């Protein structure tokens, strides 16, 4: 390389640095408190939380049902992603995070995201719309989680009405209570990423929904086993992956708190997977793959409220506890009480969410996060009481409102498909589709019908032979 070359490279480099510097300065002047690093992380985290619903939860649930219902189960997650995203933009965000009305609900100041400025609000270094989208993904997955309880029998219309009403009448007020400046936030309840708002609310609502909608035909003896366990394992792994956005993203910044939440999330999930597998091994003789994956999800649920407030060791304890609590709920409590919470939404999210919310009141430490509080193990018994109030309030709101919503819907339209449709499978009965068409040529008895356009074209051709004939 000649001296001449080097000089030009040097000049170019200096010019580039100057240009970048000028651009950066210009941006700083426009939005003084926005951090590009924080914004990049929060947008990425939002996309990770979206991934939890579809494909994560969709596959997790889809593999667990019988093959005649896998599409309807995937549809619950995918359709919720569409429906609640629209609901969030139109009114959900404003109800959750709009200006406080008596600590109960947000005012409708931001209908259609009206009045959401470009400049960050106080104590945030990200554009408000990044926060809006991040929170919107939470609303989506919370509704989608509930659907696991009523798969293989709910009518699509009933599901659709339930999803919209639940997001509006349960999720929005609860998110406001805990995160939007409502009464639980003022009380000092700690919920870093949604133990109460997301997991207890969906889990308890799922239990009530399973009781109102009723068991699947033939439950428990005639219910078919999961049709595709590898699909469920893929879904569980995607949930784990997306959960880093869920919990570490809840720091709302790319900082050490995000790294703490990332660490506690990972530690708790791993420990819960181990605990579930070993418990099952001792209790039933074999460690199942499904059990290990279910345990990991239970651990992710339990660490969610605590993830930004506890140490890594506490995370291991919380994860281990989740493995035991979830295992007990699914293996002991459910068969004893006889409800058909089909994909164990209550066992995994309701019970482990409750454990996690209470454990936050035990293990939270200001040494980990000075913005949080000390828990009972650090001399502040009052925090456990505050957590208990948060848990009870969530149970009552979720259970009561789910009951009312389903009774209201049932007044207008049936909640369940007919038994004939249930036996044929929801994919065919509700969606006119079948998931797996393994047909050999000529063997399926399947003939593609001409579309209306093709039929019209065909008859026109038959009537008027082309000039060449």
């Amino acid at each position, binding site marked *: 390389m000649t001296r001449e070359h080097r000089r030009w490279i040097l000049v170019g480099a200096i010019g580039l640095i100057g240009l970048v510097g000028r651009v950066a300065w210009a941006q700083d002047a426009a939005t003084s408190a926005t951090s590009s690093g924080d914004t990049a992380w929060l947008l990425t985290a939002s996309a990770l939380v979206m991934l939890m619903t579809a494909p994560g939860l969709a596959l997790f649930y889809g593999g667990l049902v019988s093959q005649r219902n896998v599409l309807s189960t995937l549809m619950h997650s995918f359709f919720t992603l569409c429906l609640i995203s629209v609901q969030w933009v139109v009114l959900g965000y404003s109800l959750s995070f709009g200006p406080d009305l008596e600590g109960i609900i947000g005012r409708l100041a931001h209908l259609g995201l009206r009045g959401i400025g470009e400049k960050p609000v106080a104590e945030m270094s990200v554009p408000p719309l990044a926060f809006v989208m991040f929170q919107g993904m939470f609303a989506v997955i919370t509704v989608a989680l509930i659907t696991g309880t009523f798969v293989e029998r709910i009518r699509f219309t009933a599901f659709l009405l339930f999803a919209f009403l639940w997001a509006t009448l349960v999720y929005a007020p609860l998110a406001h209570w805990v995160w939007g400046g409502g009464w639980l936030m003022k009380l000092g309840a700690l919920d870093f990423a949604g133990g109460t708002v997301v997991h207890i609310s969906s889990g308890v609502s799922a239990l009530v929904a399973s009781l109102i909608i009723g068991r699947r035909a033939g439950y428990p003896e005639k219910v078919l*086993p999961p049709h595709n366990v590898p699909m469920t394992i893929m879904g569980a792994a995607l949930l784990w992956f997306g959960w880093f956005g869920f919990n570490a993203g809840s720091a709302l910044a790319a900082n050490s708190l995000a790294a703490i939440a990332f660490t506690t999330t990972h530690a708790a999930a791993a420990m819960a997977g181990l605990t579930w597998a070993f418990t099952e091994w001792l209790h039933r003789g074999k460690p*199942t793959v499904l*059990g290990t994956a279910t345990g990991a999800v239970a651990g992710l649920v339990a660490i969610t409220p605590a993830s930004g407030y506890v140490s890594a060791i506490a995370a291991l304890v919380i994860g281990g506890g989740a493995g035991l609590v979830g295992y007990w709920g699914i293996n002991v409590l459910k068969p004893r009480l006889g409800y058909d919470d089909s994909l164990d939404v209550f066992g995994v999210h309701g019970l482990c969410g409750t454990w996690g919310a209470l454990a936050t009141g035990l293990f939270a430490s200001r040494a980990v996060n000075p913005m949080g509080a000390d828990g009972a193990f650090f001399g502040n018994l009052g925090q456990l009481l505050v957590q208990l109030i948060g848990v009870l309030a969530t149970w009552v709101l979720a259970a009561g409102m789910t009951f009312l919503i389903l009774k209201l819907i049932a007044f207008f339209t049936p909640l369940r498909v007919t038994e004939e449709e249930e036996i044929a499978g929801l994919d065919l009965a509700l969606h006119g589709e079948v998931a797996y068409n393994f047909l050999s040529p000529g063997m399926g008895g399947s003939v593609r019908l001409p579309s209306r356009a093709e039929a019209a074209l065909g008859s026109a051709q038959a009537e008027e032979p082309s000039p060449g004939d």
Partner: protein
Amino acid sequence: MKKIESIIRPHLLDAVKSALHEVGIMGMTVTEVRGFGRQKGHTEMYRGSEYRTDFLPKVKIEVVVPEELVEAVVEAILRTARTGKFGDGKIFILPVEEAIRIRTGERGEHAV
């Protein structure tokens, strides 16, 4: 002519097929089937719920042979499909009235 139906363990199909080939069987029909005899089914467990499966996967081989080959075929199957445990399967021998090759219309033993 006789038709020999044997129901065997799926993983022994290759061994049986080779043995049949050695005694002069040039064609066969194979079907994946499910069933049970004295062998017990198995139990699966998903999140603590146990599912018992009675019908186990087996393979059914059908061959049609001239009378004089029947014993050789049976011996070949017994030799290759036997493990000595419950679940080795069964052999059934049925009379066949006629065999017709569709391509040529040939009838009788020449057609198989």
